[in-house]
């Protein structure tokens, strides 16, 4: 079992660009959540996907959007990048109130 995987590991973009981050959940997990972790801070909840629908959302602007595919993998898209979007983006998967397993994260740097 490969656990939760994320790609890419690192990414550098410039202001105004768009970015797509990808996550494959742990085998058997159907729920994927995305978190943003700024340097020196705890992770902040962005949104959660279940059955290909956004089930709930944190306090993030509409520039942040996502998608879940039939195989439960997920994408996080960020449009019109700002310097403040620089962070570690974490994906977590779970199966109904069990432990959330985290991926290694994608480090996004916006210049």
């Amino acid at each position, binding site marked *: 079992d490969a656990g939760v995987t994320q790609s890419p590991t690192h990414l550098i973009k410039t202001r105004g660009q768009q970015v797509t981050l990808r996550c494959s959940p742990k085998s058997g997990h159907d*729920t994927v*959540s995305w*978190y943003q972790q700024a340097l*020196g*801070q*705890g*992770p*902040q*909840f962005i949104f*959660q996907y279940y059955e290909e629908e956004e*089930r*709930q959302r*944190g306090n993030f602007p509409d520039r942040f959007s996502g998608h879940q595919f039939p195989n439960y993998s997920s994408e996080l898209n960020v449009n019109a990048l700002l310097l403040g979007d620089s962070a*570690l983006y*974490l994906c*977590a998967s*779970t199966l*109904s*109130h069990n*432990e*959330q*397993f*985290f*991926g*290694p*994260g994608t*480090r996004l740097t916006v210049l």
Partner: protein
Amino acid sequence: AQTVTQSQPEMSVQEAETVTLSCTYDTSENNYYLFWYKQPPSRQMILVIRQEAYKQQNATENRFSVNFQKAAKSFSLKISDSQLGDTAMYFCAHEGGNEKLTFGTGTRLTIIP
């Protein structure tokens, strides 16, 4: 809305000693879960220990144990016989019925050889 507070930004302790990390939280829910996660420099968030709020018995996992005081909304982590590999950021987190995790700001723990 849930909030989680960790009031110790940094702590250090000698190897083999015991250390306690503090966490307080606020929630309006009756059924919830509390967690301690470890994040080493590799960035991988690793679950250390989990507590269900409806269970009065404190959770233990080998050298790790918690002191869960539900009325006081306190959830501290005790690490016994600390090891160099315990050096990491530690995050306290709350999960309610919506499976959304709310994290504290973390405590940087350093184990001194």
